[in-house]
């Protein structure tokens, strides 16, 4: 008698399970607890991590901008101005520096930032003179916006 049906019941599973598991676990190696070792726990946490990473790309831009604004506000208050006044007067004087550059200047080049604050202060005073004065005085130096073509 020859038994043939027993060998028909053996299944050949896939040969690559180890590497597929490792591909997922490599994204979980810096987690805490069993989720950095056990596949079923890691699957859920890694998927959540990817979702957070996708959402954070927009949040990072927002957070960096608020950080720059906080730093510029603090630096301008050291020189006696407030953030909205500084930015509005800089744009009126056609100084087209974005918040990232101005915050870097405030950190690494404090004297350049002081000169920017003084420029904004002068432009502010000229604006007040134009608004509150008679109109007989000539417009100030910084109010002359040069349009380069």
């Amino acid at each position, binding site marked *: 008698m020859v038994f043939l049906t027993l060998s028909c019941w053996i299944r050949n599973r896939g040969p690559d399970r180890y590497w597929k598991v490792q591909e997922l676990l*490599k*994204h*979980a*190696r*810096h987690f805490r607890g069993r989720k950095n070792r056990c596949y079923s726990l890691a699957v859920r946490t890694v998927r959540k*991590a*990817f979702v*957070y*990473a996708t959402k954070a790309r927009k949040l990072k831009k927002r957070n960096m901008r608020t950080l720059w604004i906080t730093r510029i506000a603090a*630096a301008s208050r*050291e*020189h006696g101005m407030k953030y909205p006044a500084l930015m509005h007067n800089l744009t009126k004087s056609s100084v087209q520096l974005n918040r990232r550059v101005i915050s870097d200047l*405030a*950190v*690494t*080049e*404090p*004297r*350049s930032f*002081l000169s920017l604050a003084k420029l904004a202060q002068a432009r502010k005073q000229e604006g007040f003179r134009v608004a509150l004065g008679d109109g007989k005085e000539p417009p100030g130096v910084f109010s002359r916006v040069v349009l380069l073509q």
Partner: protein
Amino acid sequence: MTSRATPSRFLRSVLQNGVGRYVCQLKRISIVFSKNAQSSLGLRDFIEEGVVDYAKKNPGTVVYVSPQSCRIPKIVAEYLNGNVREEIVTNKTSPQISELLTKLTTQSGLDIIRIRKPFHTDNPSIQGQWHPFTNRPPSIGPIRVQKQDTQ
């Protein structure tokens, strides 16, 4: 692909290469191809025409040409910092391969992973980094609570 899970590095040049003399970071190029297969046709054309000119133009790089019976033709580039890069050049034409070689020559051997910032300075601050006493020298005196006279 989280930024913590994948490796990343800062932008840098190898030992300030280029500030003084420029040293080509490519140490060795090994071209592995087969003499008869159709996939290494472009590579064989490149070896007939362009390899000698390339080797003369880059005297600091050693070029090894090894015909073997292999299915996929490869170019293996080794750099001075030890990194090895293999490029598979099946079914590529000769000008494409020379473009690839110029790309490998101009690369430094640093890892091709995410670069955290697209800029790098050794001296970020020229006027002096801000510290709490930059705009508030001690000669002014300490900050006191403002006493309101109306009270």
